[in-house]
């Protein structure tokens, strides 16, 4: 060892002991400055000889005890007790400086602290990193046959084991000397070292750095600090990384959830759009072409739907009940449509739909005109007769009512669904438009299917077809009205999305959702269709405008009706219906 190095190390030791008040043991010294343990002991010895004053020295005595010659004994003894302790050993015992420190610590564990922290840091290093502890290069016992394999796990594991053995040995030796103290020490080691480790580690590192830099020590010392620097940061970094990982993992899970939701909606929408569009488009076109006068059937459907809607509106009050009702049964196709519907971008969709649907639309518009015109008078009649808000404008009103109902439902749901909406919005508008078309088409198909059943008796099959068409037209009308509703749709979608959408979102099982969603979907589809029809039906403006007005009025009516119902429910009668509400008569008897 070069003299310069020795000098530097000695100065470091002095600084550590006198300024940092650190316990400098030969093990720590050896590892920290990458010198062999014997050199470290020698250094310490030299240091003690030079700076012995004002320091407390702990010596390690090893040998056979007189009292117990059979066992080899290692004992740590403070300077003043050295002579006395020597006497206890049988014959020659090796005496080495174990550590130097500013004072004899009250807690013996303090002696191990520095080196424990050091050892911990070394152990915390990446398994591939070779350090003095792993290869045990400073061990006093050398075996040339032992291969130092950095990457090999056995080496790394072996090193720590050795260390632990050493520690155990020391503790045992201590036991002899300090019977009572030992257990405490061990315990303390476990307990104290860990907390202290964090505190001391940085200090040590800093010290080393400053020393190395300022003093201009030899190469080894510099290396050591460098190593140490690496070492010290590593563990902390590792911990941080781990924590980050954990946090990121957790965060990732959340992100995944959210991401999934958005992804689902998007993917579903797109998938749905893609899937649905081709099928329905054809159907819708056919349906439109087949336009006829199916008004009565439509109206009947509407009535049924209205009833359902009312329920839904009532049910809306309590979120739980949303999932109600009959519509779902009507058309499975609607479900599929519904899936698509969630994406509908609301107002925007209409124009897009127009473009996309232009080919389809013209037919629809024409048909719609005829049908609508014819239907309206009928509607009026119905209105006068029935006096129900929903039925009166049969197409419009029914549609409206549907829409309103859907809208109401949607509003209830909207709060939760908002984020999804955004995500949906973000999704391709074109897709949404497509989906809207599809939805509209689907609706028409649905209406067809539903209508025929109801009206089958009344109407001939062609008539049924016509009905179907009328339904479609209604849908278109509804579409015009619905744009506002479209916004409301999103909430319903939400539920739909959750269940329906696969994580990948590509595969939406169309039939999955039933109940309210279907209703909402219908409304959505109708609204989208309306939008399409509106754009395409510019020629029909007069008709559309006429239809539009009634729907608005009807909407208001429909809205008011459900609201009133809800209010009533809240009201006296509603209270009566409330099974939980007690009756005053159950408490007071009639006189």
């Amino acid at each position, binding site marked *: 060892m070069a003299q310069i190095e020795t000098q530097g190390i000695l100065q470091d030791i002095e600084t550590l002991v006198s300024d940092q008040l650190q316990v400098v043991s030969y093990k720590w010294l050896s590892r920290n400055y990458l010198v062999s343990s014997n050199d470290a002991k020698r250094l310490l010895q030299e240091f003690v000889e030079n700076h012995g004053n004002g320091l407390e020295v702990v010596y390690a005595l090893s040998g056979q005890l007189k009292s117990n010659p059979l066992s080899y004994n290692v004992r740590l003894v403070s300077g003043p007790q050295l002579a006395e302790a020597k006497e206890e050993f049988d014959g020659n015992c090796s005496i080495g400086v174990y550590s130097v420190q500013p004072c004899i610590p009250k807690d013996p564990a303090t002696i191990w602290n520095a080196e424990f922290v050091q050892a911990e840091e070394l152990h915390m290093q990446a398994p591939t990193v070779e350090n003095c502890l792993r290869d045990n290069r400073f061990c006093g016992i050398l075996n040339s046959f032992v291969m130092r394999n950095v990457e090999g796990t056995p080496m790394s594991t072996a090193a720590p084991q050795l260390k632990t053995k050493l520690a155990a040995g020391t503790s045992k030796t201590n036991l002899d000397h300090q019977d009572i103290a030992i257990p405490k020490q061990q315990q303390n080691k476990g307990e104290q070292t860990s907390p202290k480790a964090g505190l001391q580690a940085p200090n040590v590192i800093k010290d080393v750095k400053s020393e190395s830099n300022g003093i201009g020590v030899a190469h080894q010392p510099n290396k050591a600090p460098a190593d140490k620097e690496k070492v010290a940061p590593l563990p902390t970094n590792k911990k941080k990384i781990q924590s980050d990982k954990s946090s990121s993992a957790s965060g990732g899970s959340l992100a995944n959830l959210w991401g999934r939701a958005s992804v689902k909606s998007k993917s579903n929408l797109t998938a749905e759009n893609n899937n649905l569009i081709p099928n329905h488009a054809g159907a819708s076109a056919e349906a439109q072409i087949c336009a006829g006068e199916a008004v009565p059937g439509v109206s009947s459907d509407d009535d049924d739907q209205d009833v359902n809607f009312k*329920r839904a509106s*009532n*049910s809306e*009050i*309590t*979120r*739980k*009940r949303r999932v109600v009702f009959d519509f779902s049964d009507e058309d499975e196709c609607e479900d599929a449509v519904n899936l698509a519907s969630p994406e509908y971008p609301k107002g925007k969709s209409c124009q897009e739909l127009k473009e996309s649907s232009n080919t389809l639309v013209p037919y629809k518009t024409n048909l719609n005109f005829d049908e609508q015109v014819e239907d309206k008078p009928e509607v009026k009649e119905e209105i006068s007769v029935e006096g129900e808000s929903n039925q009166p404008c049969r197409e419009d009103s029914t549609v409206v009512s549907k829409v309103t109902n859907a809208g109401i439902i949607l509003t209830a749901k909207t709060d939760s669904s908002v984020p999804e909406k955004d995500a949906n919005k973000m999704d391709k508008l074109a897709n949404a438009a497509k989906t809207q078309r599809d939805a509209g088409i689907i609706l028409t198909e649905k209406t067809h299917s539903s209508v025929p059943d109801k009206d089958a008796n009344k109407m001939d099959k062609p008539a049924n077809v016509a009905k179907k068409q009328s339904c479609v037209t209604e849908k278109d009308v509804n579409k015009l009205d619905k744009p506002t509703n479209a916004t409301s749709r999103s909430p319903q979608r939400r539920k739909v999305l959750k269940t329906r959408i696969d994580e990948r979102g590509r595969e939406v099982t169309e039939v999955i959702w039933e109940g309210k969603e279907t209703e909402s979907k219908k409304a959505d589809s109708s609204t989208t269709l309306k939008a399409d029809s509106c754009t395409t039906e510019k020629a029909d403006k007069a008709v559309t405008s006429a239809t539009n007005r009634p729907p608005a009025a009807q909407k208001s009516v429909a809205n008011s009706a459900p609201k009133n119902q*809800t209010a009533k*429910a*809240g*009201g*006296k*009668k*509603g*209270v*009566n*219906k*409330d*099974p*939980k*509400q*007690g*009756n*005053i*008569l*159950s*408490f*007071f*008897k*009639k*006189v």
Partner: protein
Amino acid sequence: MLELRLVQGSLLKKVLESIKDLVTDANFDCSATGFSLQAMDSSHVALVALLLRSEGFEHYRCDRSISMGMNLGNMSKMLKCAGNDDIITIKADDGSDTVTFMFESPTQDKISDFEMKLMDIDSEHLGIPEAEYHAIVRMPSAEFARICKDLSGIGDTVVISVTKEGVKFSTRGDIGTANIVCRQNTTVDKPEEATIIEMNEPVSLTFALRYMNSFTKASPLSNTVTISLSSELPVVVEYKIAEMGYIRFYLAPKIEEDEDETKPQV
């Protein structure tokens, strides 16, 4: 022959305003002891009991007990024609199917007569037993009204819980929950502003806020309201009418089976 002269005519106006929304038709029972009313709301959930003792009237003549069925809405319309400072006299002849309200302005320079047709009402008079209530809360009526009004914006029902800590009004709705705790507070300048809680044992009951809000329309009648709670019994919300009597509202509690479903089922 019935003739009741009430100097503080506004009192009757307030009474009518407080109950006309809860009860549409009711029988006013006049006896030698006083002028009373007991009626249930149409859903038989709430019951209102009014008593105006004869001592409170400047002139009280009731030859024999009589029950007059009145539409409270119509009666309210007529009483609205009386000024707040007017003296109101209720007159009815035996066997007559009408009742006459006479309003005299304080200066006696304006006298109005309103004759209102009576109606036959099949009313079920309920015997209300005297009961020991687990908890009795007396608090400023305006405060109670405010609480009910606030909570009704959030939920449909209010849970009134009386503990040693105070009385807690809590509700839950779609938008969230609300809890209002009123502690006993007797260190106030005016006694009517005090909140006094007499509790024999803790009690917690759920009521429909709609009715509570209806009850609070009687707040103008009294600065304080007394809420008497007992499990297994309807809550009593009582407004004392100064020196005359009271108006009490009984409200059957809601059965708390499932806390999740606080909302009325359709």
